[in-house]
């Protein structure tokens, strides 16, 4: 109780310290006067009366000091003193302070920004969703098919029924709705979701309601939709009476039953959803047909939420057991199939997985940049501490404790770090949504990849900041604590260039670290650039000058017959245009997000093992497709208008498939069974790339779009530029049907480039930060070299007086700097050899130890280092020997 009281009164004393001084002065003065008067009364002479009084009193200054210390809290007082002193020191050298703060702001800010990206994209991508930590992605696997196939609805329901460790099973399949706006059509991202979607996620629509369980059931029975907040605002002008109104979606009026809350973008990392429709509407939104009752149709992407306390392993074990039972019960569809659960950051079907390596690299890069920045600031502080050696020595000599000096230096570091952290957090706040700019837009739309700055990000960034402060703040502190009083008080002379290397050891070490780290970044950038170049040199096997686009006829509610007629008419009109060589229909655009059709097949004359099932991807294409795409025909013919609904079913296989299943015989004339239907093989096409440039040649075949489904995609071989073609196309489409509009018109090259976005993003990031690191390292080197030169004027003067010419001096100083650089490069090489192996998946046909890359990184480093050293060296030659020696 008393203690608290004392503390409080001391704290109060801290605040009203200002008026304490005159009080105590007056009180002590009064005391002395009284004592002197008393002494005088006893008959002492005035002089003696005064000195006796003082003697009796003890040291006035010391009493005051004790009094002051008692009056407030010394710890705070010291801190306050240090703070003011530190601020004054920083103000006195604004250039230094600015540079240091800038370095640190960049370091801390880029770290905080990347943390917020990782938090918002990988770890907690759905901020409005309750219990994200218990949410897992669910995807299938198939023994015979690589990758992560989807799950069928009957299987999904069986999992839900038979598993006990799960709170909820949520279907969330991304789909697109084409909305015509002017003469361009735009894709609005939408999701087919199970009826429990909004309830299970804990997201309450702000208007209307979510879906009800009955709305899962019945083929196309519930044309209802919940719309996003942004759509409600932009397209419906925040209409408060929106509920109950209808919106045409894929040619069918849908009743709007709810508006999702602001900030809810659905549960697909990368794209913001605008409509949600219930599961029963699957057929309307999936161009490949009705799938709700077929266990073999795997199309569902989704999430599960585990019950509290259930681990991923337990859940996986339970669901795998159920999958095993399903495999036994339905061998025809489920043989060799199962499901996997993934934490959100490893979700296979959205952009979490594709962005993971890029974000990993981003993290490594910004941590290196922070380290380099710390080393740089440490070096700056050190150089300054050397300048202040005299001040420090005097403070030590007059009795300041060494710990007090350390405290002072750390306080200065803390001031720098605090300002830099404030700037860094601001920078992170501005940059939190910038990640998306590194990725290309699609259909004129940017992806939706907001960063998330929550308490975890803030805590982590603060932690980083504290560690950084200790890192760079302690360097000069350690150095200072080694000051030897006697030798330091003597006028300091001595050179640094020639002998006396030990003193510069810490500084050189810091530069070495910087050089090594930026070398690692350079190597990383070089490797990625090399592999990107390798990827871009791969021929896709088709003409990349071909234009591609789509015309979604579902918007107008076309049936099959009408859409076939429309497509024929459109192709005719396009081919009649000047400058158009040919045009063709395709269902799936190569290198697109939409996946190809895939089916179990049988080949006439090819015996499969009893347990083996051949599953091959295929595309539905129109007449003259191969010619339009520039895919060479090896033998036979491609499709013509005659391959229609009434004609004999046919197929064109690629040469890889021919070699694999016909073993050298010409497949033309033999038969192929797809989904139980026999097709006549009429041609063989040269293999091309279908989904990614890096893929290995794989079997693939084409079937006529007329005999299978409705095509949406269009490829056009033309000499016209895309913008011109887009206008012409819009005109032709409008002429056929006022309600239709084509999508974005791009070259196949552009389409292909979008799939290498991840690699390009990584290259760009490493190049930018690698460059930054190089500049920082060069500044560090420059700082150390110029300091060294400025400290050794006397030595340099002596050398000159003894006959050294400018060339000798330049050589001497350059060799000092370059020796440091080479040491840094050697350390960097060792580190890079260990680290680049982690880039595995991003590298294509480039060895992580590619000598050319290491060599050029080394060259760049040496050039930068030479530039950084040259200026100080040149300045050294300007030393005036007479003056240097006289000083």
């Amino acid at each position, binding site marked *: 109780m*008393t203690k608290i*009281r*004392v503390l409080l*009164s*001391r704290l109060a004393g801290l605040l009203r310290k200002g008026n304490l001084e005159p*009080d*105590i002065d*007056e*009180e*002590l003065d*009064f*005391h002395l*006067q*009284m*004592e002197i*008067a*008393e002494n005088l009364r006893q008959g002492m002479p005035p002089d003696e009366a005064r000195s006796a009084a003082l003697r*009796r*009193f*003890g*040291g*006035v200054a*010391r*009493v005051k000091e*004790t*009094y002051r210390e*008692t*009056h407030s809290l010394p710890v705070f007082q010291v801190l306050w003193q240090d703070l003011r002193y530190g601020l004054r020191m920083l103000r006195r050298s604004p250039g230094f302070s600015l540079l240091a703060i800038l370095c640190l702001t960049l370091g801390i800010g880029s770290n905080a920004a990347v943390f917020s990206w990782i938090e918002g994209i990988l770890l907690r991508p759905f901020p409005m969703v309750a219990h994200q930590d218990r949410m897992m992605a669910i995807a299938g696997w198939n023994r015979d098919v690589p990758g992560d196939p989807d799950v069928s609805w009957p299987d999904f329901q069986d999992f839900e029924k038979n598993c006990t460790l799960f709170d909820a099973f949520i279907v969330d399949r991304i789909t697109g709705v084409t909305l015509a706006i002017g003469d361009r059509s735009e894709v609005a991202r939408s999701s087919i979701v199970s009826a429990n979607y909004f309830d299970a996620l804990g997201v309450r629509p702000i208007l209307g309601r979510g879906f009800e369980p009955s709305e899962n059931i019945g083929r196309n029975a519930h044309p209802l939709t919940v719309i996003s907040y942004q759509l409600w605002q932009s397209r419906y002008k925040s209409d408060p009476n929106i509920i109950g109104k209808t919106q045409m979606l894929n040619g069918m009026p849908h009743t709007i039953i709810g508006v999702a809350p602001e900030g809810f973008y659905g549960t697909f990392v990368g794209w913001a959803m605008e409509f949600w429709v219930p599961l029963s509407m699957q057929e309307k939104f999936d161009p490949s047909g009705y799938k709700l009752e077929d266990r073999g149709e795997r199309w569902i992407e989704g999430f599960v939420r585990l019950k509290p306390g259930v681990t991923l392993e337990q859940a996986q074990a339970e669901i795998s057991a159920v999958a095993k039972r399903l495999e036994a019960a339905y061998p025809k569809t489920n043989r060799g199939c199962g499901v996997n659960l993934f934490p959100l950051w490893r979700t296979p079907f959205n952009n979490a997985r594709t962005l993971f390596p890029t974000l990993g690299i981003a993290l490594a890069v910004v941590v290196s940049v922070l380290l380099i920045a710390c080393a740089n600031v440490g070096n700056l502080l050190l150089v300054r501490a050397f300048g202040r050696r005299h001040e420090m020595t005097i403070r030590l000599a007059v009795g300041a404790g060494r710990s007090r000096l350390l405290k002072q230096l750390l306080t200065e570091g803390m001031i720098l770090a605090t300002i830099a952290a404030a700037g860094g957090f601001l920078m992170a706040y501005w940059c939190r949504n910038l990640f998306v700019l590194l990725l290309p837009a699609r259909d004129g739309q940017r992806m939706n990849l907001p960063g998330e700055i929550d308490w975890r990000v803030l805590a982590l960034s603060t932690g980083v900041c504290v560690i950084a402060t200790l890192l760079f703040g302690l360097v000069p502190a350690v150095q200072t604590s080694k000051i030897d009083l006697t030798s330091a008080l003597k006028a300091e002379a001595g050179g640094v260039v020639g002998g006396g290397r030990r003193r510069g050891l810490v500084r050189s070490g810091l530069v070495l670290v910087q050089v090594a780290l930026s070398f690692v970044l350079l190597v990383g950038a070089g490797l990625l650039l090399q592999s990107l170049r390798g990827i871009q040199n791969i021929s896709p096997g088709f003409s990349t000058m071909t234009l591609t686009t789509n015309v979604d006829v579902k918007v107008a509610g076309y049936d099959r017959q009408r859409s076939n007629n429309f497509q024929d008419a459109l192709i005719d009109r396009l081919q009649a245009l000047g400058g158009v060589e040919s045009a063709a229909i395709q269902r799936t655009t190569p290198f697109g997000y939409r996946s190809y059709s895939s089916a179990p097949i049988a080949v006439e004359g090819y015996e499969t093992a009893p347990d083996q099932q051949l599953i091959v991807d295929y595309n539905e294409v129109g007449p003259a497709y191969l010619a339009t795409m520039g895919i060479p025909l090896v033998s036979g013919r491609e499709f013509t208008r005659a391959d229609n609904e009434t004609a004999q079913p046919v197929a064109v296989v690629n040469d890889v498939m021919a070699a694999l299943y016909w073993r050298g015989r010409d497949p033309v004339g033999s038969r192929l069974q797809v989904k139980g239907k026999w097709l006549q093989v009429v041609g063989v096409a040269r293999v091309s790339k279908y989904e990614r440039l890096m893929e290995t040649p794989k079997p693939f075949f084409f079937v006529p779009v007329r005999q299978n489904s409705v095509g949406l995609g269009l490829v056009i071989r033309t000499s016209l530029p895309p913008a011109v073609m887009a206008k012409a196309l819009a005109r032709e489409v409008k002429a056929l049907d006022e309600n239709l509009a084509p999508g974005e018109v791009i070259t196949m090259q552009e389409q292909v480039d979008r799939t290498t976005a991840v690699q390009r993003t990584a290259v760009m990031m490493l190049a930018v930060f690698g460059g930054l690191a190089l500049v920082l390292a060069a500044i560090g080197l420059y700082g150390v070299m110029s300091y060294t030169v400025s400290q050794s004027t006397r030595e340099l003067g002596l050398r000159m007086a003894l006959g050294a010419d400018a060339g000798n001096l330049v050589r001497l100083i350059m060799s000092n700097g370059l020796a440091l650089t080479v040491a840094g490069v050697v350390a960097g090489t060792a580190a890079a050899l260990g680290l680049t192996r982690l880039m595995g998946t991003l590298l294509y046909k480039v060895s992580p130890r590619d000598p050319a890359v290491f060599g050029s990184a080394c060259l760049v480093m040496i050039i930068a280092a030479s530039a950084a050293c040259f200026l100080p060296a040149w300045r050294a030659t300007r030393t005036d020997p007479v003056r240097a020696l006289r000083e």
Partner: protein
Amino acid sequence: MTKDKTDILHGSLALMVLRTLDTLGPQHGWGIARRIEQISGDALELNQGSLYPALLRLQQMGWITSKWGASDNNRRARFYAITRAGKKQLAAEAANWERIAGILSRFANPARESS
């Protein structure tokens, strides 16, 4: 040397100050110092200066208060007065001191005890 002295004084100085203020009523610093020296019969060589931090500490404890007033010779001086909590503390400290003094004197003069 100063260290031992202040250490001893720390505890006892509080007692002396409190007793002085209790007996004489409000006093300024110099008056307290004089009184302590008188009572101790000038046997106690007090560093008068060390009185002031002690006075501040006693205030922080809430045992004494201070306010500015006029001295006998009409100069501005700070007067200290004992509080109710101070009186309680004085009683407790005096009793404690007597107990300790009693014990110590028995150690100092064992002969008197046995006789």
